């Protein structure tokens, strides 16, 4: 039995596990709004764009968080402006901005070969390299997101459900959207070390979609997505120690497995009419899975 508790004697492991759990909760909860507004591609794009910003700040000697934050805020404002123009071009503009930023990051990496290890972390996540400073940032962003969600629960829900009508009921929609974009950017920045740019979108999308399969209530979907995200973070990192697979990938694969189980359950249940599972299956078809 000693084997099973072996990783806990290493402080860096415990730190990584706590970080992955918090990031799982954070991405699961924030992802609910991302999925319900069909903005998965924005989460994906934002992660790639912020990766570029991170590399630029690293190469130019600025702190990762300061560089990533400045770049993240800039990208979010740009994406918001692009998305508000509903004509053709909005999606394309976002795609161009984010992929160019990503390409810039990759270009800089290839010129500065010696940093490859750190950039590996930013691309695929490196949970065991989490410092207590990183942990503090993750905790801070989680607290920020929790405060925003608590204080603006109704405004966020109304805007997510129907932003056009929310305005007619006096919800300050542009402010709510801007605030949420900032929370999303902060979430991506805080998650970069843990999951890597390539896996963040998955952590934003899979737990909420899984939760949607299990319930028709917004409140329960939110709670379940946070719990599923946190649990897969915790268990994923623990398992990754033994199977010697990248921790970020293990977390996301675990989320994928949970999704498949929920899907199987929903499909089985949909054969019994009146359970609502058929509708839920139809509902998630709208969500984009990367």
């Amino acid at each position, binding site marked *: 039995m000693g084997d099973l508790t072996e990783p806990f004697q290493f402080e860096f492991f415990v730190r990584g596990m706590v970080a992955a759990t918090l990031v799982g909760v954070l991405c699961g909860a924030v992802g609910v709004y991302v999925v*319900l507004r069909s903005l998965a591609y924005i989460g994906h794009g934002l992660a790639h764009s912020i990766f570029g910003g991170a590399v630029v700040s690293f190469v130019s000697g600025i702190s990762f968080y300061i560089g990533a934050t400045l770049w993240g805020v800039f990208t979010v404002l740009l994406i918001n402006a692009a998305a508000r*123009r*509903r*004509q053709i071009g909005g999606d394309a503009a976002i795609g161009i901005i984010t992929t160019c930023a990503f390409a810039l990051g990759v270009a800089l990496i290839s010129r500065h070969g010696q940093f490859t290890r750190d950039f590996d972390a930013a691309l695929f996540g490196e949970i065991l390299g989490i410092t207590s400073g990183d942990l503090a940032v993750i905790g801070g962003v989680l607290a920020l997101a929790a405060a925003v969600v*608590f*204080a603006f*629960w*109704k*405004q966020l*829900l*109304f805007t997510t*459900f*129907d932003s*056009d*009508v*929310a*305005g*007619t*009921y*006096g*919800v300050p929609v542009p402010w709510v959207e801007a605030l949420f974009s900032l929370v999303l950017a902060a979430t991506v920045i805080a998650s970069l070390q843990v999951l890597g740019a390539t896996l963040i979108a998955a952590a934003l999308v899979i737990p909420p979609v899984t939760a*949607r399969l299990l*319930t*028709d*209530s*917004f*409140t329960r*979907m939110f709670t379940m997505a946070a719990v599923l995200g946190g649990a897969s973070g915790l268990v994923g990192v623990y398992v990754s120690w033994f199977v010697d697979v990248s921790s970020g990938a293990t977390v996301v694969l675990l989320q994928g497995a949970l999704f498949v189980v929920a899907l199987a359950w929903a499909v089985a249940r949909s054969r019994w009419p009146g359970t*609502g599972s058929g*509708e839920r299956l*139809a*509902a998630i078809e*709208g969500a984009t899975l990367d």
Partner: protein
Amino acid sequence: MVELAPSAPGHRPPPHPDGEPLVQLRSLSTGYERTPVLRDVDFTLRRGEFAGVVGPSGSGKTTLLRAIAGQTRRFAGSVETHPRPGERALRLGYVPQVEAINWNFPLTVGQAVLLGRWREMGWRPWPRRHDRELLANILERLGIGHLADRQIRALSGGQQQRTFLARALIGDPDLLLLDEPTSGVDIKTRHEIMHLLGELNRAGTTILMSTHDLNAVATHLPRLVCVGEGELVADGAPEDVLTPEVLRRTYGADMLVLRRGDAIYVVEHLDDAMTGEGDSEETPVPTTPVGG
């Protein structure tokens, strides 16, 4: 402006009750982003009115309702509202077109309705006892009390309309704006919804609704506004407004208007063979008046 047909003696309330103005649009041009959809609109709605908006698809009915709610881009003119004393904005109860609602959203009837009270609920994410009582009351009043925990897709068309009517009513609105509240429901449900709206109006609620249903809905309202190609073509009592001339300018198609006593019937699909113009006093009228 509007060609006035001799008005039939009726028992409808007058089109302009002498309440004070609630909303005034003056020479308003409004729309989205670059293009105005409605041009040079002058329109006043008074407290206690019950008015309908008709016009073809894409003419700007929804845009008119959204303009009153201050949710469109203003290019020229003004929107003036008169909130109740001590309040900064008009309280609106907006019921969107069913096509505009995301029915897949994980929202129960109760959660959807409580959104209409988001401001009054204060800082808490969850409803207090008073909110829950109000919710139960309003659902009961609309006959959907047993459906509070149903997801919004798992409802009939009539129940869906009532859900969003409940969301509009729970905020104690000065003005109800309804976008095609009778589309996609059967005759009986339509009758029930119109009856309900009539009751609300008699109890003092000001209502503006759009509709595609000229005969079953529009002709029974006290006041009608016709929107055609981005302009208000006519505004007044149905018996004054519903003339072949106005309908042609609104819909761009020839229609026949049949009258008998107080009843008006618009023949919407006119065969080529039928070229009769205007009022025909002799023709039997196949219509059942609703409410009013």
